[in-house]
């Protein structure tokens, strides 16, 4: 009677969600899984050419990627020039979620007997959705602190922003930031927080830069600069493709013009140092103002800089001490640890020790010990902000429970069946 009710329930669902039947096909599942394997294979090959970040962006964080058959492979000389569209991670992941969800609705029997299978699939759906959410919202940043000082902001590893700071008020600084996505569109920018209009002439994610002797020819980008460090240091820059390799350092650059209403104030150049703009002063005294190119306007002092995208936190971290340990007789790191004070929003202070594989978790962020320099007395934390970090754990627990249930169910059934059958002597 129960089975019949469940059966009719599945029948009813199939009737109600008829449009989901083709999407719930097992053939579609197998096709998507096969395509996923191809995608992983191709992305792994491409990783050698364009690096991990490049392969991730081209093939996994997109709906499709374009692949060219390697020239060195058999027949490569003929096939190399043919662009092959490959379904991307978003497309396959999205379709797999739809496929599994549809199967859940129109193919699975919602009975105790099958609850294990349902849990396993639910876990997989959760894993896929979790990955998608992580992809969309996870952010990786760095926090660098000198010993004895404290910091209350983190800077993204990738992505820059134009920051304009008005520093005339002794009690507070006004900061206006323009993200990379807007700078990439170029054109004129007007904001009520700014007393001037910004016209973006050139923006690039990477460049070669050099201080050149006067009179030496400059690139067209550098030629137009007539104010600020770019002008005073006679800086030449040449646009360069983004370096996706793990060791790649990308120097984002921006050439912009400021207007006071319709009157041009001048053209500036600013470059973002991937290790933080505080590094400029050590590269050359001529470049030290790159972290704050001053612009006086209507009795106010503004500082302009292109920097790694920054986020201020409601708490700060003070670096009390650092310690490096190496394997005896070698320079191979054994342990790096940072002794810190976490200054919380409510004037409370928490002491903590951050070392390799033992991060600090606070405010939804995880601070991992990333780099350290005992000679210069500073420590760098890698900061991960991933609100969905628990999802993969929950998904794995669901899959495990599902499998355990399913095996246990069959085991009990088998044992019962065995105990009922007459023993053969």
């Amino acid at each position, binding site marked *: 009677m129960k089975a019949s009710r469940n059966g009719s329930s599945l029948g009813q*669902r199939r009737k109600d*969600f008829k449009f989901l039947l083709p999407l719930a096909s097992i053939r579609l599942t197998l096709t998507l899984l096969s395509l996923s394997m191809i995608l992983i294979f191709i992305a792994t090959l491409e990783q050698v050419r364009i690096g991990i970040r490049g392969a991730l962006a081209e093939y996994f964080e997109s709906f499709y990627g374009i692949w060219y058959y390697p*020239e*060195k492979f058999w027949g490569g000389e003929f096939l190399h020039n043919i662009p092959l569209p490959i379904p991307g991670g978003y497309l396959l992941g999205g379709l797999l979620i739809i496929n599994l969800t549809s199967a859940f*609705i129109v193919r699975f029997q919602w009975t105790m007997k099958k609850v294990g299978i349902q849990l396993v699939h639910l876990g997989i759906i959760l894993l896929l959705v979790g990955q*998608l959410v992580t992809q*969309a919202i996870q952010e990786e940043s760095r926090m660098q602190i*000198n*010993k*004895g*000082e404290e910091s209350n902001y983190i800077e993204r590893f990738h992505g820059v922003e134009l920051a304009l*700071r008005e*520093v*005339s*008020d*002794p*009690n*507070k*600084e*006004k*900061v*206006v930031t*323009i*993200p990379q*996505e*807007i700078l990439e569109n170029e054109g004129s920018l007007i*904001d009520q*927080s700014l007393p001037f209009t910004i016209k973006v002439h050139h923006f690039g994610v990477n460049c*070669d830069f*050099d201080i050149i002797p006067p009179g030496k*020819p400059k690139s067209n980008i550098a030629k137009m600069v007539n104010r600020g460090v770019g002008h005073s240091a006679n800086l030449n820059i040449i646009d360069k493709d983004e370096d996706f390799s793990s*060791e790649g*350092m990308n120097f984002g650059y921006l050439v912009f013009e400021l207007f006071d209403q319709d009157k041009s104030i001048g053209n500036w150049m600013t470059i973002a140092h*991937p*290790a933080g703009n*505080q*590094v400029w*002063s*050590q*590269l050359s005294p001529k470049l030290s103002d790159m972290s*704050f190119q*001053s612009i*006086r306007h*209507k*009795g106010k*002092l503004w*500082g302009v800089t292109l920097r790694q995208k920054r986020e*201020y936190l409601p708490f700060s971290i003070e670096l009390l001490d650092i310690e*490096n340990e190496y394997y005896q007789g070698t*320079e191979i*790191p054994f342990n790096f640890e940072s002794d810190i004070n976490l200054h919380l929003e409510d004037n409370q202070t928490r002491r903590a020790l951050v070392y390799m594989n033992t991060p600090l978790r606070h405010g939804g962020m995880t601070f991992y*010990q*990333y*780099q*350290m*320099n005992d*000679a*210069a*007395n*500073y420590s760098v934390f890698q900061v991960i902000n991933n609100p969905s970090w628990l999802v993969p754990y929950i998904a794995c627990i669901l899959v495990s429970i599902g499998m355990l249930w399913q095996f246990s169910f069959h085991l009990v059934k088998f044992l019962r069946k065995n105990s009922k059958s007459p023993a053969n002597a």
Partner: protein
Amino acid sequence: MFTNLLKKKFPSLLCAFLFFSCSEEPSIQTYFIPPEYDGAIVTWNLPDTWGENPDLTGPMAGSFHVKTKSGQQGRIGVMPFRETVSTIDVANMFGREMGYPSFTEENLASILQEKKIGNRTFEWLHLNSQNDSGSSSRRTALLALLRQEGDTWLFPFIADQKLVMQESDNFIRFLDSCTLRPEKNKPILAKSPPLPSKPKTQTAPPPINNPWTWTIPDSWTKGNPSSMRIASFKVEDQNEGELDISVTSFPGNVGGLLANVNRWIGQIDLPPVNQSSINQYCNERTLAGNAGHLVEAYGKEKAVLAGILFLESESWFFKLIGDRQLAEKEKTHFIDFIDSVVLKAEAKKK
């Protein structure tokens, strides 16, 4: 019941999922933070009849002129003094230019005034040129000295007496508009850490000291720094051709000769070679008194030249890569460069 609920909610659930999948729209953000900037802050409002001199000289924080029908005239400046400076020193500094004998406290007191502008009090000093007292274009130095806690600011206005008189109201308005804050005392610890190439990281191998010295051809310029490179140079020509020259070192043999040659010729779009055909790109060559290799490979557009030295515990790579035509031109220089490599200790002996 659940089926009905699902049926009703499925489209809205799908829409919600797609909505939340979309990332946030980038926008211009404005926020306030406690003061971070620790440099000097000097700002002003310039009168309409004044212009800014673009090139600052000496200790000037600001330099201006008056725009007149006959062109730019007069000099107005903003000069910060970190330490307390005496009024007599300032008066003598400008007085000598105006033909005054050295001031004493007594004779200075007779011409020194105090002037309150806004909520600040300035020491006010008029010095008229003693050399051209009868002239209509008599030079005048109007000096305004502001003493703040720990710092002193001097505003000299030097011009013809007539112009100084004419612009005195503008000068007062200018002084009133000034924001003056000295550079904050920096802590003894460097605010900025050293370059990222220097620190020891968890993954990077320890830096290898450079035992070599070499002679760099005149046509090469310094290249971009990198944590992986011991030295970096570049060559550019007028046809936008570029060569990147690097000196790198790694522990061990980093895969050996064949692997490195194949990696490099791959970079200039040439097919890989095997052990038996490696000689088409590679010859033995003595480098710095050791048995080394010279790699020479030319692709359609790019070329690579390299000197390789496999030592007992480390490998050294002297590599040139870039535009083929320029590489062919620079080949002699490159060979001279790798031939010039010697141990620093040996170079000293010579």
